[in-house]
C-alpha cells in the first residue's frame, strides 16, 4: 500500500477538471515489490546488512468509446537502498522469528503520460513528463520463518515503511518541481526465501 496523497489529489483534480469525462480507473494500488537483502550475523541472533527493494505503482484517468480513447497515466517506481539490522531467534520445530529495522535512500521516478487516439480520423498524440526525487525511509518489520532445508529458509514478514515525502523534480528542467510530494509510506507484507551463506 502506498499513501501517495498528493498524487491522488492531482489525479482527482485532473479527472474532475476534464471536459471529456475522464474517470479515475486506477489509483496507486498495492503492487509487488521486490527485495534483496544481504545480512551478516555478527552473533547467532544479531545481524546487519544491506537491503534493497524495487517498488512500483500507478494510476490512470481514462475515457474511451467507439471513437477513440484518452488516458492519463501516472507511473511511479522507486528503488530502495539501505541498511538493515536484524534480531533473530529460534522457535521450536525449525521456526524462527525476527525483528528487523531498515532505513535507507529511496530513489523515486514518476512519469505522467497522456495519450489520445481517435480512430476515425487516425489521430493520436501523447505527452510525457518525468520527475525524479530522492528521499529517506525507515521500515520496522517482524518476520516469522521456517528453516526449510539446509541453508534455505522461508519466511513471511510484515512491517510499515515510513517514507519521508520528498519533492519530485522534472528531469528535463531541474527548476520545475511537481506540485505535491511523493509518499511511499504504507504497510508492507511479503514472503521471502533466504539462503544462509555462513550457517
Amino acid at each position, binding site marked *: 500500500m502506498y499513501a501517495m496523497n498528493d498524487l491522488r489529489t492531482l489525479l482527482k483534480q485532473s479527472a474532475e477538471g476534464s471536459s471529456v469525462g475522464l474517470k479515475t480507473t486506477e489509483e496507486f494500488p498495492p503492487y509487488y515489490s521486490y527485495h534483496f537483502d544481504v545480512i551478516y550475523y555478527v552473533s547467532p541472533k544479531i545481524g546487519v546488512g544491506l537491503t*534493497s527493494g524495487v517498488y512500483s505503482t500507478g494510476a*490512470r484517468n481514462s475515457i474511451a468509446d467507439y471513437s477513440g480513447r484518452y488516458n492519463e497515466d501516472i507511473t511511479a517506481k522507486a528503488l530502495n537502498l539501505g541498511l538493515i539490522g536484524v534480531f533473530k531467534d529460534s522457535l521450536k520445530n525449525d521456526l524462527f522469528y525476527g525483528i528487523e529495522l531498515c532505513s535507507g535512500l529511496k530513489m523515486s521516478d514518476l512519469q505522467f503520460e497522456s495519450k489520445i487516439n481517435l*480512430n476515425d480520423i487516425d489521430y493520436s498524440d501523447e505527452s510525457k513528463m518525468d520527475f525524479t526525487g530522492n528521499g529517506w525511509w525507515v521500515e520496522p518489520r517482524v518476520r516469522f520463518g521456517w528453516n526449510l532445508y539446509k541453508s534455505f529458509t522461508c519466511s513471511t514478514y510484515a512491517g510499515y515503511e515510513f517514507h519521508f515525502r520528498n519533492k519530485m523534480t522534472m528531469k528535463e528542467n531541474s527548476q520545475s518541481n511537481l506540485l505535491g510530494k511523493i509518499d511511499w509510506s504504507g504497510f508492507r507484507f511479503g514472503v521471502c526465501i533466504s539462503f544462509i551463506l555462513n550457517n
Partner: protein
Amino acid sequence: MRYLFIFSILLLSFTSCIYNPSNENFVEIEKDVPVPEITDKNIDLEADTLYVWKYTRFNYDLSAVNAQIHSTQVIFLNDTLRYASGQGSFVVNPTSVNEGTYKVKILVYSGSGTGSLADKLGGEGYEFNREWVLVVEKPKIVDVKINATIENGFLKFSWDKIDKRFFKSYRLYIHDSGINNAMTREITDVNRNSFIDSSYVGGPIALNLWVNYINSDGYDAIFQKSFDYDYSIKIRFKEGIDSLRFSWDKNPFHCSVHPQNNGNEIFNVRSDTMATIRASGLGSPIQYGVTFKPTYLPPFTSGGFNTYAAFTAGIFDGFKHSNIEYSQLLHSYIFKHEMSFTATNELLDVKGKYDYSWDYSDNNTIDFSVTGDKIYTTVNGQLKTFNSNLELLNSEKLPVGEVGFNTIRVIKSLDDRVFLIGTDGIIFLYDIVDHRIIARTPTVYGVSSNFKFSVSADGNYVAFINDKLYVYEIRNKQELILRHQIAGSFYGCFFAPNDPNKLILNTPENIRIFNCSSGSVDRVIDRFYANPINIDPVTNYMLLVSNSKAKIYIYDYESDKLVLELNHHGFAYDFKLLNNLIFTNPGYHFDISPYVYK
C-alpha cells in the same frame, strides 16, 4: 564478489517488473444520433438572397441542438473570416464594393452530437454550408414612368414600382386645376404604386411624385417626377334658324352635368351630352359652358370643372370694325377700326391694311372716289387717300380742330378735291388742294351718333339729326343749302344707296321714306317694330333690327316682302347688310344668300 554480481543481476531483473496501468473507462456511446439542426437568430437562413444598399453588418448566431458548434467561416469577396464559435459577422459596404451580384458562403463545423470523446475533442462532427446570393446596389432611382388611365369612371395614376430595399415611401402632391383642389398623400407600401383621384372630372391636373428612399450613406433622399394630365372636353355647336344645340363628349368620370348659357344654368336638360336652346342668332359671341360636378366633391373647391366655348351665329372673319362699306366697283369690303383700315376681296381675303396707333375720333369714315379707284378715310383729323390695295397715296390734315369739333362722322368725296366733312358740330365743304373751307353749316350740337348722319351717294344731300332733322343740299360743290328742317323725334337716318334722293327715317312710330327733292314722305313702313339700319347696295334689301324683339328682318322694301327673319342678341347698330352678308362689328358675318332669292 560473486555475491555482489548476483545481487546486481537480481536487482536489475526486479526493476523490470514495474507497475503499468491498464484499466480503461470504456463508455458505451450511441453512434446513430440525428444530424444537428442549425438555427440562427440574426441572418435569415431561409432567404436565398441578401440585399445591401448601405453599410450593413450581417450577424449570425448559430446553434445546434445536441451538438456544439466548434467554428464557422464566412467566405465573401475572396476573403475568409474565421470564428471559433457559432457567432460571427461580416460587413458589406456598398461604397467600397461595386454594384453587382456576389456569393456569400458560411461554413459551420459542429460536433456530431453523439457525446463521444472525438465529439468532445472536435474530432467528430459535421460540416454545414449555406450560400446566399448577395445583391449590392447603390441606391439610386434613374426614372419613374407615370401614366394616367380612366378606370370605372375615375382617374387613376400609376407609376413604376420601386421594388427596392432602400424604398421608403411615395409622396404625391396633386393639384387639380379643374375643380381647384390640391391634396397630398403618402404611401409607404411599395406595392401600392397607383392612386385614384375620385374627384377629378376633367381639366388640367398635375401630379408631383416624390419617391423617398435611403441613400448609400443611410440618409433620406428624394427622387422627384412631375406628370401633367388634361382631359379636356370641347363644346360643339349646331345652330338652326330658331334653335341652337350645343353638345360635348360624354364625360367618362363620375359627375353630374350642368350646361350654362352665358353664365345661367340651363335646366330641364335631359341629356348629359347636349343641350338645345332658342337660337340666340347674330351678335357678339356668347359664352356657353358646361360644369361637371364630381360625385364626390372635396370641401373648399370650386364646385366643378367648367369648360366654355363662345359661339354666335355666322362665320368669324376677325374684322372688328366701327364701320364697313362695300364697293361694287372694286368688289371690295372696307373695314374701319380704331386702329386699322382694312380692305378685303369678296371672299374676305385681305388685300391691304393700314394700321395706326389709335383713331380717337374719326372712327366711322369710309368713302370711295367718284371713279371708284380711291378709298378715303380720316384718322385723327387727317384725310387719308389710298388706292384699292390700301397703299397710302396722300395724307391731308383737315381743319377740324379749327372749327372746334374733332369727331368726323362722315366724309364724302364730291370730286376727289372737294370733300364734305361732317363732324359732331358742323358740316363743311373742304378743298384739299387749296386747303380751305369752301362752305359750312352753322354749329350743330348734339349729333353724337354715326347713324344720325348720312350723305347721299351722289353727293347732293347731307342729312343729320339732333333736335330736328336737317337736310342740306350740296350745290355745285360750293354751297351748303338748308333744304329741310323737320321737327320731331328721329332715331336715325340714311340715304338709299341706289336712290340717292330717298332718305330713310327711323322714327318712334314707323319708318319713313323721305323724298329730299319734294320734302315729302313717299312711304311709311309700319309693319316692323325695328330700326332700319341700311340698304344693301347690291341687293337693295333693307336691314331692320329690333332690339326689343331681338329680331333681324331682311325686307325687300320695294316689293314690301319680308325675305328673312333672324334672331339676334346684339344692338341694332352692330349690324350692317352688304352684298347679302350681315356683318357684326365683333368680327362675324352671316350669309343670307341661302335664304333669299336675290
